[in-house]
């Protein structure tokens, strides 16, 4: 059988990475977006997202992957993915009207024998409710995007979860041939199961995170160290080596919040018990302000007119996303204080804080600071030498939730190194 020609519509994060991965597996891929300016940018190889390995993958794809702003070019495709990022608001609510409109436009441009695949994450019931494409050639494929690891995960998925109208029916041959190229288990199931499967994965992840946060906070109070405990848990086969056991500053990025909101909404509608999800949301809100509480106790309530250095504003490393970023939240809270900020990927917006200054590098950010807060674990921050920081800072408080700095070196350099899940350094008495 001739290899299928693949179309991917929606060239934001998910579509761009997924289209590139399809081309990376040898398929010819037409990447479409209605935004002509975005297409022009892509043709200049100016990627709108930061994702390790993306540039080299697209370069290696060469002519197999092309960009277009013309929907008609999808007419020759055997399989068309619709994959725009679905926006969410600060409350985690999904706005689906853009996706629905794009699906309608794409379906109108496709040839009538092609396969339509919804790749964007949608709530249960969405795919079956579309009603504009023959159900035997309409699929919902669960996306596996993880910011900062998207290329690797798109190229080598652990499995492909496939929502179908009838999971007992054979998958359309061209589509099956495409999926087989990824050399992983293919798991057909009804649309609603696949739609909920993605949400279920995220719920399991946030449950692990919440457990880690809960126990890590206890560690901080009783002299235990979560960094010692977590490896023991990873060796338990019932938990696993890839479990989300790193404590954090609450859930951010937007996607997990959206899924929690979806479960709560479904639970309210259908009258099911969702106390665990409510607890996860509450814990996330509580942990979000951990850095502020530490700063208050150690600096803001003790030092007159302190200067606070903030390293990192993205919600995690290797991304430009600041959606629900703890750093941006902290910056807003420090409106009455002097702050200096540095992030290697994002230029902080003056709207966040009128008195904020922006540094050109991490060390310059720390000059004369009474405290430093490391809120994104960018790899380059790991090479900062605590002794040099101590020499450049005015104070010695370093709030480092993810333990980016070497703890022994930081303590040895005389820094008051405050880490999530680690015994809390004593606050000096005034």
């Amino acid at each position, binding site marked *: 059988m001739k290899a299928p020609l693949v179309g991917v519509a929606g060239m934001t994060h998910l579509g761009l990475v997924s289209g590139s991965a399809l081309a990376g597996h040898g398929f010819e891929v037409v990447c479409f977006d209605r935004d002509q300016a975005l297409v022009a940018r892509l043709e200049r190889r100016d990627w709108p997202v930061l994702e390790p390995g993306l540039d080299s993958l697209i370069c290696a794809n060469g002519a197999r992957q092309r960009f277009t702003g013309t929907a008609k070019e999808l007419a020759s495709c055997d399989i068309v993915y619709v994959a725009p990022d679905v926006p969410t608001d600060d409350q985690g609510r999904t706005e689906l009207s853009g996706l629905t409109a794009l699906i309608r436009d794409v379906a109108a441009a496709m040839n009538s024998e092609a396969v339509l695949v919804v790749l964007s994450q949608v709530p249960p019931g969405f795919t079956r409710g579309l009603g504009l494409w023959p159900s035997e050639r309409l699929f919902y494929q669960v996306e596996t995007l993880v910011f900062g690891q998207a290329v690797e995960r798109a190229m080598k998925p652990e499995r492909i979860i496939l929502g179908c109208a009838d999971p007992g029916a054979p998958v359309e041959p061209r589509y099956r041939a495409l999926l087989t190229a990824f050399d992983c288990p293919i798991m057909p199931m009804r649309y609603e199961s696949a739609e909920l499967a993605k949400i279920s994965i995220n719920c399991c992840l946030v449950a692990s995170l919440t457990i880690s946060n809960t126990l890590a906070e206890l560690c901080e109070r009783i002299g235990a160290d979560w960094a010692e405990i977590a490896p023991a848990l990873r060796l338990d086969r019932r938990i696993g080596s890839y479990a989300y056991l790193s404590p954090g500053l609450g859930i951010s990025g937007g996607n997990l919040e959206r899924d929690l909101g979806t479960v709560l909404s479904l639970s309210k509608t259908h009258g099911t018990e969702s106390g665990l999800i409510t607890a996860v949301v509450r814990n996330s809100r509580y942990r979000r302000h951990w850095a502020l*509480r530490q700063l208050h106790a150690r600096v803001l309530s003790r030092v007159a007119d302190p200067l606070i250095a903030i390293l990192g504003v993205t919600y995690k490393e290797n991304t430009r996303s600041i959606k629900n970023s703890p750093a941006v939240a902290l910056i807003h809270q420090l409106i009455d204080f002097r702050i200096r900020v540095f992030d290697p990927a994002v230029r902080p917006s003056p709207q966040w804080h009128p008195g904020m200054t922006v540094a050109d590098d991490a060390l310059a950010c720390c000059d004369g600071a009474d405290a430093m807060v490391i809120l994104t674990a960018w790899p380059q921050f790991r090479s900062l030498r605590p002794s040099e920081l101590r020499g450049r800072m005015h104070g010695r408080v370093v709030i480092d939730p993810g333990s980016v700095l070497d703890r022994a070196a930081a303590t040895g350099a005389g820094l008051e190194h405050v880490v999530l899940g680690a015994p809390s350094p004593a606050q000096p008495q005034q």
Partner: protein
Amino acid sequence: MTLAHAHSEPRKPTRVVVLGAGGFLGRRLVEACRRADVPAVGLSSRDVDLADAAAAGALAERLHPHDVVVFLAALTPDKGRDSGTLMRNLAMARAVCEATRRVQIAQLIYASSDAVYSFATTLISEDTPAAATDLYGAMHRTRELMLASEAKAPLAILRLTAIYGAGDTHNSYGPNRFLRQALGEGRVALFGDGEERRDHLYVTDAVALIVEVVMRGSTGLLNLATGQSFTFRAAADMIATSSGRTVVVTSSARQNPVSHRHFDITNLVRAFPDMRFKSLAEGLAATFADMKAEARG
């Protein structure tokens, strides 16, 4: 709901009227306002009996437009725990509501209590549902609802944890009673071994926070607590140590299960990020000094 400031920078109101100015907190609040060069009038039950049927009119006559009213007045549990006390307390709130409909004030600050919370939740924040388990807690919660629905003024509700300091007129279990026992009897009597953890707020810090709420024209809900909880045993030991005399701390057979209470003060930190609380040791030492000074003269 949390606290929101009307003024980004502190702004002095034209006048502050303190209801319950004869009490432990009220006296200090009037003094603090005056020290901050804010005109302040203290009204006690001798000036206006808020539980009286004619109290609304009497209070309205004493209010000026644009006043900030701080409502501290309450019959505390040592004055009675029965429904009669409850109804008198609610009558006070009704009078305040009615007075604010007659005179357009700038801000109403209500000093509520952490008694609105149940001990089933050990880490309390403003998101914790109010679930009073006695009439005193129910009184405060009812007053909050009355003020929110019937008072005509921007409203700040402050839920205070237990306050300690010299001049306290109550004798409830905790630092105030321990201080008196230590000075008077040379002993502090604990329930059980004093294992319960509680947050204790020094009166000067409570007053400072209320003044901040006045100056910022704040509205909404805020718990006033330090975020640090100590066992009653620890408080008793600190008192014994700082008393300057021999004080025996005694245990007794436990009558009730141990319960703890902690506060998540994130919202307080967000509202007042440079607020510095006296540590319990500092506050107890300051209280001792004040009590000894009062005793001398």
